[in-house]
């Protein structure tokens, strides 16, 4: 399946600057793995050390959160959009 993965601005720097990437995969998890393979530097932003998705990144297939579907096993079909939605907080300095 060929789907387009939409990368938010906060993560584009770790995906070669791309806003949208065409990737192959049968499930949401496979699409994310294909992204991590192409851009290894994005990996630590997507996954915890145990391989689970980080809790501050939501993954949508179309308009539905994969948490409400089958998680990373959620099936995707040709032409679907997979969207990464990280938490953003704006403004002030961190440390």
């Amino acid at each position: 399946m060929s789907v387009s993965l939409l990368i938010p601005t906060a993560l584009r720097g770790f995906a070669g600057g791309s806003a949208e990437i065409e990737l192959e995969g049968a499930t949401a998890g496979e699409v994310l793995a294909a992204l991590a393979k192409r851009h290894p530097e994005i990996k630590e932003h997507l996954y915890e050390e145990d391989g689970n998705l980080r809790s501050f990144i939501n993954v949508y297939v179309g308009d539905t959160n994969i948490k409400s579907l089958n998680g990373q096993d959620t099936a995707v079909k040709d032409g679907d959009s997979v969207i990464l939605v990280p938490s953003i907080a704006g403004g002030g300095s961190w440390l």
Partner: protein
Amino acid sequence: MALISDERLCDLSHDEIARYSRHLLLPEIGLEGQKRLKAAKVLIIGTGGLGAPLALYLAAAGIGEIGVADFDFVEASNLQRQIIHSTKDIGRPKTASAKDKVRGLNPGVKVTEYNVALTSANAMDIIKGYDVVADGTDNYQTRYLVNDACVMLKKPNVYGSVFQFEGQASVFYAEKGPCYRCLYPSPPPPGLVPSCAEGGVMGVLPGIVGIIQAGEVIKLIIGNDGKDSLIGRLLIFDQWRMKFRELKLDKDPKCPVCGEHPTISGLIDYELFCGLKPEKKELAYGTLTPFELKARLDSGEKIQIIDIREPHERAIAKFPEAKPMPIGQIARRCDELDPELDTVFICKIGTRSIFAINALFETGYSGKVYNLQDGINGWARDIDNSLPRY
């Protein structure tokens, strides 16, 4: 049930009828809706990029009482987007500047200033007197604090957030839908995601998102029972590609605050929750103030200075004698450093450089490393006034 009960409504004066005529002509608002706006009390948390349009439009709309909470003072770098403040306000408390503008726009609005940081100790007392809360904060610890307090006090929390070219908006109202924690159970660890102070933000973006929030506040008050609001929906907006998308938000039955079996029933330590109180451990690197670095350079000592900023930032202010090595290239290019020499890492404000140093140590680097405190902005402040601060 309407958010503002009928008992709280009172008549509009002739002046008010003239002022709000364009609202009164809309059957969805009308006289009754305008009376609800007049009776309503809205708390705006943060008077920055989001709070500025929120406060101005809510004042224009005739909200009876507006609270503005912000501990910060107006700085020159705020004025590119925080349109409630003016050049003459630089140095003033943001709440005072916001109050002046609101009163100038609409003297009928009562404004209460909270020129303090919102904390677990004061949040419940401040929030409880308001009907709706609008979250225009700029950090995770306050966002989780505001969310939890709103869930506990059963208040709707009108949410907006921005970064670079991207915005999010929703209405978190646990009485009728999900809360912020249902979407994001926990924040990113500090430093993984840059802030707008380091990553930048397009000035009009918080204007757009703040105005979306203001519209949601007004609709919640007018009392269509939240049914056409952003409750249960997340709006994401990409300013650069000019795309709006709407995503579904589900309530998480396991949410620790608003789920079926909540495990958090009172406010917690949000700095700890957001990882901002790291355990004290011996740092593997040292810290130099700009004065200390200057003294060592003046003594003729040979020091490697590594500027980890991106090329477009170096174009703003160049650090003399520094070798550019953008943060993403540190691991790959660590062989270019001489571990026999002391090395000083610099960035804009001395925060990203710490992550660059950690990335360097992960490669097994054994040399002595220092972080320049306050970055090139500190150097411009203390040592070289010919450099701009940004």
